[in-house]
């Protein structure tokens, strides 16, 4: 049974008290600032979103999305600076490519597109932040809870202790060498 089929069957008997859980990964320089501005302007938006601050959308590891969906989030939002405005020059371009490919993978696996969304929101776009949160929450609410009958296989990073302990490795000499990437 695919993820989505499993999910459909689970829709029956959703309790009335159910509220969607959405996690938003926001870059420090643009979207997190925009979210703060929404607060300064006393805007209102649903409390179903929890913001997790990362330095740059380029820091966004697809693994976090899997973890969130596995552990009970109903939707994930990734936000960064507008393309061309990245504080770190190119981070959001990398994010855009990675997240688009990853999104296709998730959709191939059966996840509804609405559950994983990527948006570019600047530090000035408090209104856009509010509107995005509202629309994502509503879309996820309409889909109902994400009930995975089987967990997506874990790709947890191996808990390898730092190099020196593992192999008792001591750098003896260092020779700089250009490597074409």
């Amino acid at each position, binding site marked *: 049974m695919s993820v989505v089929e499993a999910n459909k069957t689970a829709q029956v008997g959703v309790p009335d008290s159910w509220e969607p859980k959405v996690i938003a990964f926001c870059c420090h320089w643009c979207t997190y600032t925009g979210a703060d501005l929404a607060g300064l302007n006393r805007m209102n938006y649903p409390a179903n979103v929890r913001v997790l601050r*990362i330095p740059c959308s380029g820091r966004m590891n697809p693994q976090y999305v899997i*973890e969130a969906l596995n552990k009970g989030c109903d939707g994930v939002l990734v936000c960064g600076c507008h393309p061309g405005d990245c504080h770190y020059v190119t981070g959001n371009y990398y994010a855009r490519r990675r997240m688009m490919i990853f999104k296709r993978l998730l959709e191939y696996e059966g996840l509804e597109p609405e559950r994983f969304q990527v948006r570019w929101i600047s530090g000035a776009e408090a209104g856009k932040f509010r509107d995005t949160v509202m629309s994502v929450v509503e879309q996820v609410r309409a889909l109902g809870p994400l009930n995975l009958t089987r967990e997506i296989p874990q790709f947890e990073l191996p808990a390898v202790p730092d*190099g020196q302990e593992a192999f008792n*490795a001591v750098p*003896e000499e260092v020779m700089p060498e250009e490597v074409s990437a």
Partner: protein
Amino acid sequence: MSRIGVFICYCGSNIAGTVDVEAVAEMARTLPDVVHVETNKYTCSDPGQEGVRNAIISHEIDRVVVAACSPRMHEPTWRKLLADTPVNPYMLEVANIREQCSWVHKDREVATAKAMDLVKMAVAKVARLQPLHSTEIPVHKKALVIGGGIAGMQTALDIADAGFKVTIVERETSLGGKMVMLDKTFPTMDCSACICTPKMSEVGNHPNITVKSYSEVENVSGYIGNFEVTIREKAKYIDYNLCTGCGACETKCPQKVVNDFEQGMSERTAIYKMFPQAVPAKPVIDAAHCRKLAQGKCGVCAKVCPTGAINYEDEDKLTTETYGAVVFATGYKLIDWKPLYPEYGGGAYPDVITGLQFERLVNASGPTEGHILRPSDNSEPKDVVIIKCVGSRDPNKGKAYCSRACCMYSAKHAHQYLDKVPDGRCYVFYMDVRTPGKGYDEFYMNTLHDGAQYIRGRVSKIYQEGGKLICKGEDTLTSQQVTVEADMVVLETAMVPADGIDELAAKFTVGRDADSWLVEAHAKLRPVETNTAGIYLAGTCQGPKDIPDSVCQAGAAASKVIGLLNKDVLQSNPQISHVNEAICQGDGACVGICPYGAIQIVQKTFRENSRKVTRPVAQVNPGLCQGCGACTVTCRAGAMDLLGYTNESIMREVDALCQW
């Protein structure tokens, strides 16, 4: 076992008005590893901070969660506070329960639940943090300015006047750049040489400035505060300690060479100064054309030199020095229009000239001593056509961008021509007239009143018939073809970055745009900084601009450099990438992705299972890494991690959140 202290702020009623702070505190007490929870009316106030400090001591707290306003507001405050306590300043997490909770939700129950979650996330994350330490980077109190045009000179003077040592590297044999080639400057019509040459001698005589003329940057390594730069001083074949600059050699040299300074419109000798007021005011020998150096015959200059300064055995000299900051002031050149515009004759007509050639023609010290005479027959042109945007705003043949200075520059040329040839006629073909600057539009209007005929349209073709250059255009305002039978045509050609900018910028890992202009760190807020810390931009290397703007930017770059050089040491940001060398494959995926060139692959020898193994691993330069984390995701082995935002800590944050 970690010992976490949680400090929750009421922020008056800002937070407490919507969030039940005591309930959040009650919940926090149940979280693992939390040894102390405290609420406070205003945690950021002096008594609030004192409370935190005391609690840390009395409860032996080793990591801290503050649930209050946005970390963008007070994270630095808490870090500073922790620096005075036994807790490492980076063992801190801020839960934003004001901007992103109490202020955006109205329902007290909902807001309280969310605040609890945010605290849980913070506690989960802080438990996984490691102490981080800034390292101190020493700052070498010396700046390098690359390029000795007006922007480079202004930057150097400003830095030097602030008391710091500056070295200017200039590729040509003299300071001055493009400005010293110009005749007058708009809109005030100051004599360009009169305001530029005093700057040149000021730079030449300044005790804090070393001018390395006829020199280029050979090699660079290092980072902010510590750039190790090797400079190649090309062989001048003249001992500047002996040379008095008397010029006897120049008058006797038999070899004639096309004079680039005069834009090819006159000749110089093989031993030469670029122009009479050159700084340094001493000649060099152009090895490619010198008869002695190229063919082994001649030696006249050595015979006539009264001080014996000529040295035919001279060689290039390499010197390496360390600089705290580097300023690019490499300037521009004019686009080579000839291969691009065959419809304008492609260079076949000598009387189709560039704006810079025109500058030399009207200049009193130029090849015609300031008389406007056309190159083909030295006659005074009575009909002159000026064509703007040649190579600019032309993605088909040249560049898409506007070169910004040419509208004023061409108005100045029209004005100068009509001034010197009162019975002449001048037609300016334009598409738009862009004069946003103080006194600029007034200048343009004056040029119109001088009698310059502005025709709105691009010229499609220039051809020669009966000694006239026939220019075919459209007057788009009357919708008809127009023809001008001109004696001379001036093309206001596009600005493009100086030769060799790509190689030079690559050495310093300074970004370039598609047209090779150097890229500033932020178009609005950091216009003179680059993405490589410690490297700044001045003048036209960053994009086309006029002299006032170049000088402005030079001052701005200098102030940034002075700010940097004023510090003895820099505190590095410890939240940077970190390589787990045990699993690093050394494949270099991270190297290409880093926008700062902060990662390189090095060969390291490890002792693994009692054997010595040498293999490539990535190495992060803490002086260059800005902590964006792009490399962490690209690493196939998962060997890259970002300190302060480790994979582990973010995953636990996610987990904590999902328990709600």
